[in-house]
């Protein structure tokens, strides 16, 4: 059991980390917001069909109405902003809050998140600016970090070319997420798609090698729109200019709401990613109107733990 002094030191570290995150965001001009504590059960599931309700913590008011206990922050914020944002209006927000879900053992897990949401801002320069903020943030905490950068547009383009039914599309996305080349080859067995198989294999086996991907596209005569995605990523890489940021085009999100660059970050020897984000314009359609939207969230408790060590 911790001594009181150890506990106080831990609390002090936590407070300092949170203050540093807040100062960082406010120095950049972001406004701190808070999301609602509860989400109405049916409405939340209707607006977030991709969420797994079994993982979310349910509470009931005295009238018997069911709610979820703060399951996520992004959708709550954009639900409030998107119906009212004017075209060409920009809203830049940040938050430091807890979200709740059940862990694998069935206990309620409260996880503190720091996040930034940029609404109404499009363009690869904006994407690069946000990734540079993340870089700056992680460097300020003096942690070893690596960020992997992918593109949901890339994977969606490739899957469009293949004549797969819904079940096999889902299976293929899962296989790409797992970097399971053996499974990918089983799922795309039609010889006419051999070029796309070689392209996916190249993105897994030879990370960060845009020139190689270009030559595979050319050699196999693949859809040239893929080159446009590569061009955007090259621009992004130039903006962020950091060898700790690697292009991984097998990085995808299983769900459809990301539509452009996506990224994940890792620090020190921590076993999981500490941050994740990307451009999610498509998600805003569900809340009223297609609006440029970009953001990320970071696990504050993990950052605190790594800073303490």
């Amino acid at each position, binding site marked *: 059991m911790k001594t009181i002094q150890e506990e106080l030191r831990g609390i002090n570290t936590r407070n300092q980390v949170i203050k540093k995150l807040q100062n960082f965001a406010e120095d950049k001009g972001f406004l701190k917001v808070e999301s609602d504590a509860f989400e109405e059960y049916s409405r939340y599931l209707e607006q977030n069909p991709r969420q797994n309700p079994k993982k979310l913590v349910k509470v009931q008011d005295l009238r018997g109405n069911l709610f979820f206990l703060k399951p996520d922050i992004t959708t709550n914020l954009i639900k409030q902003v998107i119906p009212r944002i004017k075209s060409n209006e920009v809203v830049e927000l940040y938050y430091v809050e807890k979200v709740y879900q059940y862990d694998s053992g069935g206990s309620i897990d409260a996880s503190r998140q720091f996040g930034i949401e940029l609404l109404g801002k499009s363009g690869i320069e904006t994407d690069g600016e946000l990734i540079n903020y993340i870089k700056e943030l992680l460097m300020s905490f003096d942690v070893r970090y690596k960020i992997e950068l992918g593109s949901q547009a890339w994977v969606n383009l490739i899957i469009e070319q293949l004549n797969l039914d819904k079940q096999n599309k889902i299976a293929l996305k899962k296989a790409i997420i*797992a970097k*399971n*080349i*053996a499974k990918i080859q089983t799922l795309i067995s039609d010889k006419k798609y051999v070029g796309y198989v070689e392209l996916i294999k190249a993105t897994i086996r030879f990370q960060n090698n845009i020139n190689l991907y270009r030559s595979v596209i050319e050699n196999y005569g693949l859809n040239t729109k893929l080159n446009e995605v590569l061009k955007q990523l090259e621009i992004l890489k130039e903006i962020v200019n950091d060898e700790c940021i*690697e292009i991984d085009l097998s990085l995808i999100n299983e769900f459809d709401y990301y539509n452009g660059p996506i990224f994940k970050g*890792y620090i020190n*020897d921590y*076993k*999981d990613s500490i941050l994740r984000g990307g451009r999610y314009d498509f998600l805003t359609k569900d809340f009223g109107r297609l609006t440029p939207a970009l953001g990320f969230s970071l696990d504050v408790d993990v950052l605190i733990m790594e800073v303490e060590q």
Partner: protein
Amino acid sequence: MKQEITIALPKGRLSKQVLALLQEAGYENKIDPKSRLLIQKDEENNLTYMFVKPSDVITYVTEGICDIGFVGSDSLIEAEPDLYQLMDLGIGKCKMVIAGLDDTALNKNESVRVASKYPKIARAYFKEQNMKASVVKLNGSVELGPLVGLSDVIVDIYETGSTLRANNLRLIRELFDISTMLISNKSSYRMKRNEIEEIISNLGSRVDENVEN
């Protein structure tokens, strides 16, 4: 400087096959699989081997205790862990099958009773076939299920079929092939990518022969 890679090796028959593969790939064995030491180091290649229960390989890699590991694809399909499955090693090959006393068990109108170490796999299969099934999880000697009336059929791995035959069971249907996979923790992959890719590359040519066979 090369970063240390920790490898989860499943104890038992599979570890001998994996070690043989690693040796052929140029990692001279500085370790003794027969020793009771559960953690052994190969200082020259900066590798640490941990001998773990086969059913725990996924846990050690998911938790980041080990960077990479070797495990059967049957366990991966059942557990669906958030890991990378980087390479099919082409060893430990077998099949996932349905077996029973006879195949009439699958023609029932009512719910088929299934015994299996792989309840998720079993449920997913019967759901896909639009067949009703109730699944009982067993941890071993699954062949007993139909013999003692616990189940109509079993979903289990099939290698030579000798255990099935010895217990008067027959192979009813093959579901999919199983092989041994090299898995990686996602964070380890990103932070130690060069070292992990070097291992994959060294294993590469040796493994391709196994996969083709």
